[in-house]
């Protein structure tokens, strides 16, 4: 288990529009190595778009995205992944017919070097490589307490466990920056607590930088080092959880204009 230190992430004046819709407007945000930063905001605030920009699904219309100081704004998703950026999705994106182990092994693909022929013969370097990859995957399986589910078919698992497997696949990539899109969506309280524990452990044990989108404010406030708030594509606040919680602009964005004025 050799942790790769977390990467730094910097967004400088990033903007993205879809037709007439301004999804992300002039957002700047910097995340230090090993930091856990949450991005919150009402539905449609542009949170997922922001993650999609970071991992290369979209390219920004304006602004720059720097990973460890290197501009990745124009790179394709697989290139960004190769630089150590992994993510999970709001809606689970796993191969449902495959086992947990196979899904996690797939997470290693960016690190695979052996050619098709060597892999097919499963000989020499290919075999050594497979063993090394399996070791990392086993670390992740142990870390996420999935030992009893190695051979389970992913699609047959309960929702909360599938979410955990998805986190596992992202971890198998040995990311230096982990992007989590609502990892606790649709979970019950106990599952949420487990997941929060795992996220904190990844952050603390492996020093992985984490950007988290989550709707459960309790969780966000508990585990984040810093919180950034988006509303209508703009960043309206940023700071420590207690600062953000007390920020009137945030309350307004969440509760609406009228309520905020009458609120005590």
């Amino acid at each position, binding site marked *: 288990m050799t942790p790769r230190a977390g990467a730094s992430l910097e967004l400088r004046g990033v903007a993205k529009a879809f037709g007439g819709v301004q999804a992300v407007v002039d957002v700047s945000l910097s995340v230090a190595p090993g930091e856990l930063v949450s991005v919150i905001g009402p539905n449609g605030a542009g949170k997922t778009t922001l993650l999609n920009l970071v991992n290369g699904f979209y390219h920004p219309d304006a602004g720059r995205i720097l990973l460890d100081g290197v501009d990745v704004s124009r790179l394709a998703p697989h290139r960004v992944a190769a630089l150590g950026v992994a993510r999970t999705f709001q809606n689970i994106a796993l191969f449902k017919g495959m086992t947990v182990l196979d899904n996690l092994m797939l997470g290693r693909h960016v690190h695979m070097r052996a050619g098709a022929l060597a892999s097919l013969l499963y000989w020499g370097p290919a075999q050594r490589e497979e063993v090394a990859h399996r*070791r990392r995957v*086993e670390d992740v*399986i142990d870390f996420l307490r999935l030992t*009893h589910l190695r051979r389970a078919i992913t699609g047959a698992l309960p929702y909360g466990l599938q979410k955990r497997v998805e986190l596992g696949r992202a971890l198998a990539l040995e990311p230096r920056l982990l992007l989590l899109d609502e990892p606790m969506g649709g979970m019950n309280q106990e599952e949420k607590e487990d997941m929060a524990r795992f996220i904190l452990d990844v952050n*603390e044990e492996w020093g992985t930088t984490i950007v988290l989108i989550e709707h459960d404010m309790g969780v966000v406030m508990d585990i984040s080092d810093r919180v950034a708030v988006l509303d209508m594509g703009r960043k309206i606040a940023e700071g420590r959880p207690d600062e953000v919680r007390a920020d009137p602009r945030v309350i307004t964005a969440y509760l609406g204009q009228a309520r905020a004025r009458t609120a005590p």
Partner: protein
Amino acid sequence: MTGEFPPTLPGLLLRNAERFGARPAMREKDRGIWQTWTWRQSLEQVRDFALGLAALGFQRGDRLSVIGDNRPRLYWAMLAAQALGGVAVPVYQDSIARELAYVWDHAEVGVIVAEDQEQVDKVLALREALPALRAVIYDDPRGLGAYRYPWLHAFAAVQGRGRAFGRAHPGYFETEVAKGDAEDVALICYTSGTTGPPKGAMLTHRNAIATAESAARAERLRPTDEWLAYLPMAWVGDAFYTLVMSLYVGFTVNCPESPETVTRDLRELGPTVLLAPPRIWESMLTSVEVRAADATPLKRRVFTHFRAVAERVEALRAEGRPVGPGLRLQRALGELLVYGPVRDQLGLGRTRVALTGGAPLGPDTFRFFRAFGVNLKQIYGSTEVTALVALQPDGEADPGTVGRPCPGIEVRIGERGEVLVRSPGVFRGYLKAEEATREVVDADGWFHTGDAGFFDARGHLVIIDRARDVGALADGTPFAPQFIENKLKYSPYVREAVAFGHGRPFVAAMIAIDLGTVGHWAERRGLAYAGYTDLALKDEVRALLAAEVARLNRTLPAPLRVRRFVLLPKDLDPDDAEITRTRKLRRRHIADKYAAVIDALYGGRDAVELATTVTYEDGRQGVLQCRVRVQDVGAPEAAPAAEAARG
């Protein structure tokens, strides 16, 4: 017996390192692979850790507790403490905080070795209440990186300090082990008593080794045997087999990957010796039956046919009658087609000795495994006599008895039919409870087990019930509640049962359904349910259980048949103090808590409002309120319905 080695458990470890050197002592499945330590490596691990403890100031007589699942390092920690003349105090890892605080404080534990963050957090929460505690050591560092306490150490770090200490103090370990005396207390096992707080039974090295000697004479175990350590470390049965017997015989201990993977690990490993409580044998049988039911019609027919063959052969053998050549041929064919593959699937393919103990096992389950070629036998014992009293020799297996007393262990029946035991394994006494010790060990050294029993014609011991629970119905018929409860529990749908009848006109029962089997039954009938309580309160389920009780009543003498019962809206739970962690009923507490139900059972009412407290895993309490209906059980003629319901 150990020659030049001290007559202690660490002495046996030194002997094994010399005698068995490179043979495997310990395996643990980690990262999906079985990792192995030889006897020599095990000794190194124990030595480094012991020296590390010495560096932390561990003194002779100090107590070290372990908490967690079965892990090699926790066993090594126990041996390391014993090597320094200390005492190991294993505790149940699923205990709630209050119970842990009691035991650690009572035993004045100075060092706790915890498996992982979950267990460390429990210690952290209790630390203020444990003045004697000086150090906490953890095995799995995961999640503990950010914990900064001067008294919290990683296992490997302690071993590192131990190696440095060893260089500065050559021969320290060997000298300390040599100081060990057979009469030193090696182990304190807390018995989760059915009344009052737990009591700490002190077992000496002599107790342990002498009992191992008599177990080894009763049952041939070999250094090549494979043992799976998966039962709670705090249970004396695990301590006895995993620690003592393994050291005495030299067999290999295997630790599963996690509690969830035990079934799979069992199959991979194929242990040659296996001890399992009845519920595990029952769940194995259930899994076989479920898979048979889900198989193709042809396979199902083959399975059903050969199962019947096997059970017929077993019945003939048990009665000592000859088995005809036709049946023998079919049995041989069945071995090839069914029995062998089933044993292999269950991980029993190499099992020479399979033991069940702790509670009675249903005769149907018992016969199934024997019929399928598993050498399943009953074993009987108790914490205060170092786990072992009696077991069934090969060829004398019988679901109704617990076998013959092992060599060197005397058993006689005392007043009121109580089973008394005298052996070198009889414990030193309860920690800080001389009064309680005198109550159970008399002047002649006989330990009063509290079990009522008798010897049958063959010389096998038969256990009826706890002696103090044996009473009589109003008309004078002797009444042993456990006898009736065990009959009820033979139903796959019954998880727990509590029978009443002492001083009453008839027998009544409270039954906790088995969520797994009843849930499966409901699903097959398209009966929707929201959880345990909802399921248990359904009329259909009550009817199912009424049929089951009527069926089981036929195996009971007429006056002892269960006439009325209720289904409890929750399972009996150790967290609610209704049952011990080894699943023994705490009758007095139950009688108080469910007084309203008992009144309804005997007051002729047909329903009762029940408000019962429920303790959640984090210690919070809630109240479960519902209306429970009382069910009358018809005459046994209603039994055909039961057969249909089982279908």
